[in-house]
């Protein structure tokens, strides 16, 4: 059996360093703008949380290993080697105070994808044994049980039974040839079963075939959060195998940010092949149904509401217009929060921060940013499309004694679904 070591960590970092990383490090002028864009810095005022500083050991490694002058300096013994103590110290910077939200990458004037580098930094940290205990545990459960929260198939089946009873509709499982393979996040199974109800009804109304898969129902990917491509590939591989086995056209990522990144963008690169199926976020699917006239709603949401953009959807995923199109159908009192869209502030819990107990305190502090954004709006409801954001919003608002309900967009749409009986009878 092997084990993590500094050497493995350094080797992993060496593997990760590529032309973009070299260009990024060569271009950074220490202007400090990334700090102004990072909520862990703005809410704590702590300079050590400056995004580019979080990858400083990787910068030194790049210089020592991949530049002529750096190699010369290393050969002459003039450079400072990376040590275990250093990487231990860096754990809190790389994991606790970064949600991989990507705001720093948006504002960097020289165009450095700092978030992307922190993701790479985590490869070295995880291979070197410097990942936080919380994420190691989540990864173990994800690989061994199939869910980072330890949710097993029977638990899902129980929820399915509830949903079938509530909706009066059958929930397909392991159906070959369905158009959509629906994935769920453990949080949705445990905390927000409304999502399952909602998509059951929506797909029924749209007349689309879909299925769950008993071998791969979990969408989230702890490998992405801990930053281990090998573990992430193992988890994505299960989804790919399921999709191929069931011959679905499209795999739907649930209301979750990093799951979308994991399957949609990193997935093919993790398993080193192009997918034979499409990957879409549920909001993309719903927006397509809307455009095709297959998603019909009735009534409006009277409440004044706003939408919290999950970072992995907007900045790291390119899903910006879809939720707005959907909200337009039912929410005339929709207001944008300040910095909405690609520059929206993170809830403070993404990128594995919510699974990492060490980060609890700083996570709550970072939530201040969201609190200020919401306070300035005077709204009744917050809508979002990521279960992880949703939990953080609920927790944060509770701690700050703010009584604002949080809703998932899919479930809110389902509440306004126009059950078009005659059409349904004609088709059936």
């Amino acid at each position, binding site marked *: 059996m092997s084990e993590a070591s500094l050497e493995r960590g350094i080797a992993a970092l060496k593997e990760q*360093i*590529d*032309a*973009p*990383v*070299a*260009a*990024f490090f*060569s*271009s*950074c*002028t*220490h*202007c*400090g*703008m990334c*700090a*102004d*864009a990072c909520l862990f*810095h*703005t809410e704590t*005022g702590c*300079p*050590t949380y*400056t995004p580019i*500083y979080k990858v400083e050991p990787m910068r030194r490694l790049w210089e020592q290993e*991949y*530049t*002529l*002058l750096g190699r010369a300096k290393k050969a002459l013994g003039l450079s400072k080697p990376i040590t275990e103590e250093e990487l231990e110290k860096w754990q809190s910077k790389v994991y606790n105070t970064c949600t991989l939200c990507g705001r720093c*990458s*948006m*504002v*960097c*004037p*020289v*165009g*450095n*994808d700092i978030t*992307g580098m922190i993701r790479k930094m985590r490869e070295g940290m995880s291979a070197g044994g410097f990942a936080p205990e919380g994420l190691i545990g989540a990864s173990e459960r994800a690989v061994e049980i199939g869910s980072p929260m330890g949710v097993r198939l029977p638990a899902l089946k129980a929820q399915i039974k509830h949903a079938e009873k509530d909706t009066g509709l059958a929930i397909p499982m392991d159906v070959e040839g369905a158009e959509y393979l629906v994935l769920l996040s453990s949080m949705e199974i445990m905390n927000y079963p409304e999502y399952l109800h909602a998509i059951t009804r929506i797909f029924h109304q749209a007349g689309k075939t879909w299925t769950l898969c008993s071998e791969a129902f979990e969408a989230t990917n702890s490998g992405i959060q801990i930053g281990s491509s090998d573990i992430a590939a193992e988890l994505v591989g299960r989804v790919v195998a399921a999709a191929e086995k069931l011959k679905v056209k499209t795999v739907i990522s649930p209301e979750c940010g990093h799951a979308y990144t994991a399957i*949609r*963008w*990193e*997935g*093919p*690169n993790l398993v*080193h*092949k*192009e*997918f034979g199926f499409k*990957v879409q976020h549920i909001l993309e699917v719903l927006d397509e149904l809307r455009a095709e006239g297959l998603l019909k709603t009735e009534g409006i949401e009277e409440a004044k509401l706003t939408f919290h953009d999950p970072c992995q959807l*907007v*900045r*790291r*995923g*390119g899903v910006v217009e879809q939720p707005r199109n959907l909200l337009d159908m039912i929410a005339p009192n929709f207001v944008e929060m*300040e*910095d909405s869209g*690609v*520059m929206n502030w993170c809830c403070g819990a993404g990128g594995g921060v919510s699974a990492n107990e060490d980060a609890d305190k700083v996570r709550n502090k970072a939530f201040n940013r969201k609190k200020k954004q919401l306070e300035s709006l005077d709204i009744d409801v917050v809508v979002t499309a990521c279960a992880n954001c949703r939990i953080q919003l609920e927790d944060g608002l509770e701690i700050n004694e703010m009584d604002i309900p949080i809703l998932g967009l899919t479930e809110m749409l389902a509440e306004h679904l126009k059950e078009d009986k005659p059409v349904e009878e004609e088709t059936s």
Partner: protein
Amino acid sequence: MNSADFLLWVRGTGLQIATVIFVFGVVLRLFEILTLGHKKNLAVTRGSGFKEGFRNILTRSLPRDKNTLRRSMFTIVTGYVLHIGLFVVIFLLAPHISLFEGIFGFGWPSISTPIVDLFAVLTMIALLAILYHRLTNPVLKFLSTKQDYFVWALTFVPLITGYLSYHHLFLNYNWMLGIHILSVELLMIFLPFTKLSHAFTLFIARWYSGSMMGEKGVKS
């Protein structure tokens, strides 16, 4: 060595040395960076990464959203003044154009010297403001290394010596001009191997991040 010998040296041998190191350094650094490679993206893309990369090269020079502008006002304003000022001073002053003409064989129109002079002053004010910011802002103070101050000086000295020589202040013009040229040569020598390399690697950095984001359909 008198001022004429010095001036001749910096315009001759000194310039040769600086050019060799500068060109060698830039080419070496480009190879060093680009040959590290970048894995092909296997995910189905939303847009052309190639095109978005080039778009990002241009649009990253424009101000971001207004809140980012507000939050990083000092850095952004001084950054603009510094870079626009450097552009004007380096590329629009008649003697400088004539230098480029001597090297590349073609030139372009210059603008009036007092205007360039004004830009030089603004650029120096911006650099002093940047230094002050670096010394007082907690983040910058924390981040800054010796090299950050060194490259600040490398940038400031050619400006101040150029200004002083143009106005015939402080030292005899020939000495000042010689020192000005020497300071630019030092800048050239260190540029490829310090953070100043962002002058050319920035295009690569912006292209990569722009194309990676563009493939995801994110307007970077």
